[in-house]
């Protein structure tokens, strides 16, 4: 294993192991997603036709909130026990370390959301293809949510406020991903726009947020070194 990969792999495995032992392997994220999705019909009413039409939107909102709110602890935990200091004192560049932590977070939080989507689709009276479409768009979209949320997580560590501040800072940045995610899902269910167009834009957004997120978060952490 090349000297650069070994530390990153160690960091990745540590974060995944921590997520499984402490957070139940993304269980909390999926539980939050389930509760948010189940709450909607109580407000909207048990009308299945209506729920079917806004199903993708509800699932996307639930997944967005679930992945953002679990990001708060991404850096805060390491900051509080002093691990972040040592991580910055290593030959491995901070950007790569952040990318590794984000990948571990996505695997333990984002991916379970995607896997849970078809089951929650049942509550929204979505048939097979609809649920699959939402799941596919979430698969492409959740990495963007993680990497955009990364910036908020890094900033909230530096500002020692965390929590809701993260959501306030980051929610506007996730709007494009939300728009094209829901658009792609609806395109697959209702049309008329072909599924491909919004979906490729969504993938582009993810790639952009991948790069911007990592460097912005690293800068935020370094700037926060007070």
């Amino acid at each position, binding site marked *: 294993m090349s000297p650069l990969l070994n*530390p990153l792999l160690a960091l990745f495995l540590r974060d995944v192991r921590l997520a499984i032992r402490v957070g139940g392997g993304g269980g909390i994220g999926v539980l939050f997603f389930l509760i948010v999705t189940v709450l909607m019909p109580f407000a909207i009413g048990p009308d299945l036709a209506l729920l079917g039409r806004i199903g993708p939107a509800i699932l996307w909102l639930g997944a967005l909130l679930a992945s953002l709110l679990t990001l708060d602890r991404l850096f805060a935990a390491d900051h509080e026990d002093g691990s972040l*200091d040592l*991580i910055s004192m290593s030959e*491995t560049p901070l950007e790569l370390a952040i990318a590794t932590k984000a990948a571990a977070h996505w695997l333990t939080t984002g991916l379970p959301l995607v896997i849970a989507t078809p089951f929650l689709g049942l509550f929204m009276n979505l048939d097979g293809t609809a649920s699959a479409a939402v799941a596919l768009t979430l698969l492409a979209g959740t990495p963007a949510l993680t990497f955009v949320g990364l910036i908020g997580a890094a900033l909230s560590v530096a500002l020692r406020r965390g929590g809701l501040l993260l959501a306030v800072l980051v929610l506007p940045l996730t709007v494009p991903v939300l728009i094209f995610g829901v658009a792609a899902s609806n395109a697959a269910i209702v049309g008329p726009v072909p599924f491909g167009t919004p979906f490729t834009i969504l993938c582009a957004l993810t790639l952009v947020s991948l790069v911007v997120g990592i460097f912005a978060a690293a800068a935020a952490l370094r700037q926060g*070194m*007070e």
Partner: protein
Amino acid sequence: MPARWAEMRLEGSGLTCVRGGREVFAGLGFSVAGGEALLVTGRNGAGKSSLLRMIAGLVRIAGGQFAVTGVDAEKTIPEQAHYLGHLDALKPSLTVAENLGFWARYLGGGAPPQTALATVGLAALADLPAAYLSAGQRRRLSIARLLAVQRPIWLLDEPTSALDREAQDALAGLMRQHLSGGGLIVAAAHGPIGLERAKELRVGADA
């Protein structure tokens, strides 16, 4: 003990530190060579920790600069320094071995030597989650990190806190061993920490 590092020197000149708008110290200078220890003293809040964290690259340098000679030129100072702060950088849900293993692989790129845990007396607790350790044992586990990865510069912030008498003597031995190996130590503490020939640097109002 053959000198692991060639003739080495770490110097700081005209160092100024501003934290939260307050000037902690200004115009501070020091010089410490391989095999020597620098004891940074001063009342609480005088900036002892800030100086150490500044060397470790964890605090922005408002003024002045560091110079280091006789070490690997490409690496920055933080990449060649160990920082032992008040926080132990341990995850309670990971076991003792997992915690040490992670830091050895992340900072040093390889598995920790078997002796690291034994030297600090935690070999019997290798598979115990760190949550069950006492403050003193968590401190020993942090010290094991210094042994697991070979780095010339040790930055120790009140290293003897939470250690019992026996552990303090063991730490003094490790520090002497590190110095005789050609490494250098910058330690912040209130009193002597078992290092007889340490140079002293007072920080604070009457510096």
